[in-house]
Each structure stands twice: as C-alpha cells, then as structure tokens.
C-alpha cells in the first residue's frame, strides 16, 4: 500500500499518524479560523499534511509547527480564492481580498526546482500578509518567520496595500 508515496520518497521519514496526532489540532484550528467552515477546514487540514509530505525536506530547517502553520495559511488562501460566498466579517473580507490578489501556486517544474535549490519554499505575499495583517505578527516577527529581511517584508506589505487600495477603488 502507498507504493507511490514510498517510490516518491515522501512517506518513509514522516509517520503521518504521529504528525497528525501532534500537529493536527493546531492545523485544524488554523484552518477553522481562516475558513470559518468546518467541512472546508477539514479538507484544508488534510491538504496541509499532503503538502507537508511534499515539503518534508524543509522540516530540517525549521520546526514542524512553523512550517505547518505557513502551509495551512497558504492552503486556506487557495480555498478562499475559490469560494463564492460573501465574507461574513472584517477578517474574512480582508482574507478574501488578499487571496484574490495572487494566482494559485502551480506545481510547475520550475517551482519545484526553485524549492530544491533554496532549501525552503519562499513564502507567498499572501502568507506574509495574513501573518502580519490578520494574525498580528509584527514586521520583525513576520520577517523572522518567513526568512525575509524586515525591509523585504515591509516592501511586500506596502505593495499589497497599494493593490488592495486600487481594488477598493475599482469596487467603489
């Protein structure tokens, strides 16, 4: 069973059940908070662990909780992007706008090569924005978490704010 996982070298070093027992609840809470929908949250939680299997090489660089939190954020942003319902509160509305500004990540060869090259996947602007604007991490804390310089994070946030402002202008 799960021959493809082993063949792809994805399952041998990660005991999915042990990881789930330890980190599953944290991931589920994260997905619930961002998605506000139990069914979607469970779906996102499973997707998060699937992504962890694909990104296991990054585990040696950072603690699993940190990596899983970022993966879950990104997975949820992708789901929010495809949701049709209207946001119910301020945070949800902000998340929806952040999500709409980015294209979903594609599992392209180039992207996989880049991940291989740099040892860790560069955080998306969406993930950075959620950590800072929604979760309330400071610029310094966000920079430390995603491995960017403070000025790099500040610049991305600034660019995103401009896009959000333009989007609001278009909508009004």
């Amino acid at each position, binding site marked *: 069973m*799960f021959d*493809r*996982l082993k063949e*792809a070298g*994805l*399952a041998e070093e990660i005991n*999915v*059940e042990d990881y*789930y*027992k*330890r*980190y*599953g*609840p*944290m991931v*589920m*809470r*994260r997905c619930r*908070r961002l998605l506000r929908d139990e069914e979607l949250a*469970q779906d996102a*939680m*499973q*997707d998060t*662990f*699937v992504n962890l*299997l*694909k990104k296991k090489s990054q585990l040696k660089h950072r*603690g*699993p*909780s*940190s990596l899983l*939190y970022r993966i879950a954020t990104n997975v949820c942003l992708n789901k929010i992007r495809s949701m049709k319902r209207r946001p119910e509160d301020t945070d949800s509305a902000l998340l929806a706008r952040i999500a709409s500004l980015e294209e979903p990540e594609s*599992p392209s060869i*180039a992207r996989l*090569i880049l991940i291989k*090259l*740099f040892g860790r996947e*560069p955080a998306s602007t969406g993930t950075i924005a959620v*950590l*800072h*604007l*929604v*979760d*309330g*991490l*400071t610029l*310094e*804390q966000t*920079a*430390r*978490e995603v*491995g*960017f*310089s*403070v*000025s*790099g994070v*500040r*610049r991305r946030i600034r*660019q995103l704010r401009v896009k959000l402002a333009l989007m609001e202008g278009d909508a009004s």
Partner: protein
Amino acid sequence: MNDEQRIPDFFTEQDALGELPLDCDPAICTRLETEPQRSARLAELQDSNRRILADYPPEQMALEIKNRAERVIKKSRQQMALRLALAGIPAMILLVLAAIFLAPAIFDTGKPEETVLPPEITRVKGPARLFMHRKLATGDKQLKSGSPARPGDLIQISYLAGDANHGVIFSVDGRGQVSLHFPADESGSTTLEKKGLINLDFSYELDDAPDFERFFVVSSEDPIDVRKVLEAARNLGTELGTKISLPPGLQYKEFVLNKKQDQ
C-alpha cells in the same frame, strides 16, 4: 493591527507544542511565560486538541491523508505524462538535452560572469565594501557592480568591514524606493563584524522596479545615525550616478545591479 494586548495564535500554538524558536522575539516569549492566564490557555488548547482528535481520529485521518497524497502524485504524474505526450517525443528529447546542457541559462540569461567566489579575506584597509552573489542552480554566483539582474533574483548581500567599525547597508531602486538591509531597523546597532566576508542573514529578492537597484554601504569608525543616512538616501532620486550627500565622517561604497525586465 498589531494589538499589544493580544499574543498572536501562532505563538500560543508554538508555546503549547514547546516549539518556540531559540531566537524567539523576547517581547513575545517574556509575555508568554509571565502572563497569568498561561496555564488556563494551555489547558484550553489541550482540551481543544482532545476534542479535535476525537472528532477526527488519527488513524482515519492518516489513512485519508495518505490516500489523498497518492492521488495527488498519481494526478501530477498523469499530467506530466500528458504534457510530454502532447509535446511529442522529439520535443521531449530536446527538453532533456536542454535541461542537461542549458540548465544554468534557465536561471541566468545574463552575460557570463566569473563564478569564482571572493577570496578569503581576513583584513582589508579602507571603508567597508559590498559583495553580491546570485543564488543559482549551480551554486552562488558572484556578481560584479554593473551586472545584469532580473526581478525575482535572490541576492545574497555580503560585506567586508575593512577599517570601519560601523556600517549601514541599504538599496535604492529605480523608483527611488529605499530598503534598509543592515541593521534590521533604524534603531538597530550599526556595529560591523570584522571576521572576513560577512553574509547578511537573509537573501534579498529583487522586485519589478525598473532600471537598477543601487546598493550602498555607508561606514565609519563611530556609530552611525541610520535615520540620517536613510534621509540622504531618499534624496538620491531615480537617476543612476547621483552622489549621496552624507554627514561628515561617513564614507560609502556603491554596488549597482542593472535590472532587465522579463519580456
């Protein structure tokens, strides 16, 4: 947004898992350790953990996750096979050959540059100076001032302190936007390390600003007022070659990357 009263969930989750990083922000770690409600908060998370694991049992979830991962792998392989089939065998052969022989060009289409890393220099005289490396498939590639670069390039910034004890590193892009690279913020220490070539502890991603990115290291024997340096930087404008007007006693070296926009 950054409410002083509320510790972000991200940190409380890490605290509950015992995975706060060693370099944890003291402002957060101290609050986490000393807040009176800590034990209640941890108990609440443990209670939530129990409920979630009861609602979504580990054995069943692990099975579903593995099944889902298998489907993802199968699907991505099918998509890859389909793409290759559509491209045809000749194209596939060309692709393989291109991947083998032209891989570096995928990441760097600029002029060939020396790939020699700077020599181990333990002592140089004069003001601090900058070195840049682009991260590539074949390893880090040393750049010279004037080298071409593209939006999205990841640049490692390094410096040699020389005779200087203090320094400020920043860049100005083609829009005149200033980014501070060292110290991390305007109130940080400007003390330079003097043990040879020092890498800043992050890579800098070039954005889509046009024309160029000018990097500067301003150095001195004495501590530097970062705000004054940045103020001078903001007056540089968007012209390449303009001189920066610094307070007395400060010296600077510049390193330019010429931006090529993707077509």
